[in-house]
């Protein structure tokens, strides 16, 4: 009797072992069985091992025996084990680090960066920057000064969107009203300047061609409104007025005043237009309830003729589907349009010269035992040789070099670079460490493969090439026809990103967000637009947007003063 009881209990556990036997026999698992967790430090003594935590979800998690990571480690004598945010809020993860008082060597706190600084967790960079030329050259003095915190010191650097040498940007990585190449081809490549032009051509095309190649009904226009991705719906008024993506407000270049784009006449006209089109059945009726997955799935079938979105939010997945499903030839790929509310206005959908987001970045913590080594690690990652390894890969394996010294990839190498398995096993970009775009130090190649002109041209589908020809464009940027008038304060979202409810402005910011989430769908779907709009404006005013504007104005003044101080020197 007793024995059967014990057997019954043990059975449950034993079964799970035998069921998983296939996995437990794999190599590498042997270290895992040592549950104490102290086994990984057997590397040669001279290799420095750093730890890093990034309070953002991983784009790719690399394996321990990653091939390029090994090569980089051999060359620079140091490596970094990266841990990413998963299943938790950034502020929660950072809050726990601060409360426990124990930190990894490197940290990127995302939205909670300020809290790390306030907790005294970070090492000041000021004494180190000059010693490391690759770090020093990453920003101009004015740019570095923007990272200064309230004590006047620098604690982190943003790793992204910084251009070395000539700008090689080819895609509109940011926001635009997108339209399928097939629509443009059918309409004989017209000039589309305004919102009215845009919807007119969508309607006309849909009337003439109501379905896709396989008989699915077209959706002329959709928009994603899920959670934080509702920027696809809400922030177009700033662009339509000809302002750049300050994200949370507009800045009048002449008076240097903050303006709220939610209440402008343009905003009202934009939402009125959406409302009209919604009543006509042009706007997708499922737009407000779709999830991101459903949205991507919709775009992937090619039924959506147009939408407003950021390139990175849809193109990587959707373009890959068009390629693998061989539907590129039907002209499903999307072309960006630089629309404005009225004809003849300049637009700033694209802002050249990179974007400096000072609100977060890579930092070194007080728990780092080898601060010099950590700086050297960042410095080494920025050297051209290592940079090429990070983003191009190994010569002849991941890319080839032609007789002029230009890098290129074969079709197979391009496929590899997009393959998730290959990414985890072979490629090691150290993706949240500083990186350049623009032109390589050799003066010929692009820092990033995606910006290499030959790479870009070769990968374009036929219908898109035809669009480029018709509009006389070489890149997506050319089609937009953007001008850049963004001031030194740009982008203002690098401040509003960090706003929290502990200030009046931050509270207003959170309330405004809630209000817009609740009202914008109603506004677009309303039978009586004007009445609903007035109600929305009333509810919006109750959130005290003036508190938010006032706090942003303070920040703007501060940035302008800092800029003037830096340029006078």
């Amino acid at each position, binding site marked *: 009797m007793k024995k059967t009881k014990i057997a019954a*209990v043990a059975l449950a556990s034993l079964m799970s072992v035998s069921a998983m036997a296939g996995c437990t026999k794999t190599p590498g698992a042997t270290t895992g069985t040592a549950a104490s967790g102290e086994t990984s430090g057997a590397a040669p003594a001279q290799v420095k091992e750093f730890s890093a935590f990034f309070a953002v979800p991983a784009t790719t998690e690399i394996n321990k025996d990653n091939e390029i990571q090994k090569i980089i480690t051999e060359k620079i004598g140091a490596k970094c084990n990266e841990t990413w945010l998963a299943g938790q809020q950034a502020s929660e993860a950072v809050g726990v680090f601060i409360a426990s008082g124990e930190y990894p060597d490197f940290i990127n706190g995302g939205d909670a960066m300020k809290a790390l600084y306030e907790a005294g967790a970070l090492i000041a960079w000021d004494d180190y920057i000059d010693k490391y030329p690759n770090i020093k050259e990453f920003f101009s003095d004015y740019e570095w000064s923007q990272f200064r915190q309230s004590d006047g010191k620098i604690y982190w650097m943003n790793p992204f969107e910084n251009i070395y040498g000539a700008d090689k940007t080819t895609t509109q990585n940011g926001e635009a009203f997108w339209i399928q190449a097939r629509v443009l081809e059918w309409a004989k490549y017209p000039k589309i300047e305004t919102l009215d032009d845009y919807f007119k051509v969508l309607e006309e095309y849909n009337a003439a061609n109501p379905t896709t190649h396989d008989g699915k009904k077209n959706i002329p226009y959709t928009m994603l409104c899920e959670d934080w991705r509702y920027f696809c719906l809400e922030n177009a008024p700033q662009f339509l007025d000809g302002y750049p993506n300050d994200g949370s407000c507009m800045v009048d270049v002449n008076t240097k005043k903050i303006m709220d784009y939610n209440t402008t006449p343009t905003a009202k006209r934009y939402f009125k237009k959406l409302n009209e089109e919604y009543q006509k059945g042009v706007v997708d009726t499922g737009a407000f309830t779709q999830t991101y997955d459903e949205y991507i799935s919709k775009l992937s079938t090619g039924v959506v003729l147009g939408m407003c979105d950021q390139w990175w939010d849809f193109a990587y997945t959707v373009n890959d589907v068009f390629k693998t499903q061989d539907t590129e030839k039907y002209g499903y790929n999307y072309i960006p349009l630089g629309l404005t509310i009225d004809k003849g206005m300049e637009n700033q959908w694209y802002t050249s010269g990179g974007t400096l987001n000072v609100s977060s970045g890579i930092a070194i913590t007080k728990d780092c035992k080898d601060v010099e080594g950590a700086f050297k690690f960042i410095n080494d990652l920025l050297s051209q040789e290592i940079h090429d390894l990070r983003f191009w890969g190994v010569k002849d394996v991941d890319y080839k070099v032609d007789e002029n010294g230009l890098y290129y990839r074969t079709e197979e190498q391009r496929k590899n670079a997009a393959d998730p398995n290959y990414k985890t096993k072979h490629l090691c970009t150290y993706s949240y460490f500083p990186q350049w775009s623009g032109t390589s130090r050799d003066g010929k190649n692009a820092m990033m493969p995606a910006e290499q002109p030959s790479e870009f041209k070769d990968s374009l589908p036929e219908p898109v090439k035809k669009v480029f020809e018709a509009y006389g464009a070489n890149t997506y940027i050319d089609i937009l026809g953007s001008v850049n008038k963004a001031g030194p304060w740009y982008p203002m979202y690098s401040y509003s990103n960090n706003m929290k409810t502990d200030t009046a402005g931050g509270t207003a910011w959170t309330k405004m967000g809630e209000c817009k989430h609740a009202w914008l769908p109603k506004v677009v779907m309303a039978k009586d637009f004007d009445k609903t709009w007035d109600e929305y404006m009333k509810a919006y005013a109750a959130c005290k947007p003036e508190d938010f504007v006032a706090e942003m104005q303070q920040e703007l003044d501060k940035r302008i003063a800092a800029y003037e101080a830096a340029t006078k020197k």
Partner: protein
Amino acid sequence: MKLKKYGPGDIIFEVFLIIFMVIFLAVTLYPIINTLALSFNDGFDALVHKVHFIPHSPTLDNYKAVFAKEGYRFGAVNTVLRTLFGTLISLVVNAILAYVISRKRFLFKKSFSLFWVITMYVNGGLIPTYITFQKLHLINNFLVYIIPGAVSAFNMLVIRNYMNGIPESLEESAQIDGAGYFKIFYSIISPLCKPVYATIALFVAVYQWNAWFDAMLYNKMRDNLTVLQYELMKQLQTAMKSAGSVEGLKNGGTTITPNSIRAAATILTMLPIICIYPFLQRYFVTGLTIGGVKE
């Protein structure tokens, strides 16, 4: 003797039962089969074509993609270990606790019950708990999977409830024979509690198998202490709304994890625990009975 075995009422009941069970099976099986079919379907293809029961564009790539991540290998070992030891320890401790609390003559019966009931509804929150564990050196430690969750008031109450149903006369006669409380627990009560022990073992095993939150909170900086479900979670999270790091998405040039890879990962992690179940099942479906011991 059993004349009324198939009265008209019984036939109606039987028909109703069959119809109910068939509908139930259909509704329940669909998602499973759908997930299975999806896991064998090409990821991009599934975005364009709906998959119901049969893969539209069959492939094994999703499973290969899951196995390519070394995290799953570490995770499998740790998950098996924690399921094994966690279940064993938790069952023993909860059984003892339930036994103690269910004894009529136990001096602190009421207050001790309340002490545990409160733990079900009160918790200090993330940061205080973390700091407590830190002081106990449970951070970056495998034991954090086993020790903190070992006693659960819910499991204890389920066992206690079952033990309450066992006639007191058994205990009394054993006491007259000179048996102590431990002896009674070990050789009289426990053998009768097999069905409920099996139930709790299943609950704990499934909890341990599915747990990832503790791995994320306490052991995230140690790759070799990861668990299976945490690795799965990381693959699933691209679908979660909160995954938004605009900067990362912008610069990482990432594609979303196809639903089909999520499906493959799901099938792989649910398979083993489903295989165990039939072995436990006999304890509560076959109608193993303790009726014989009732007065």
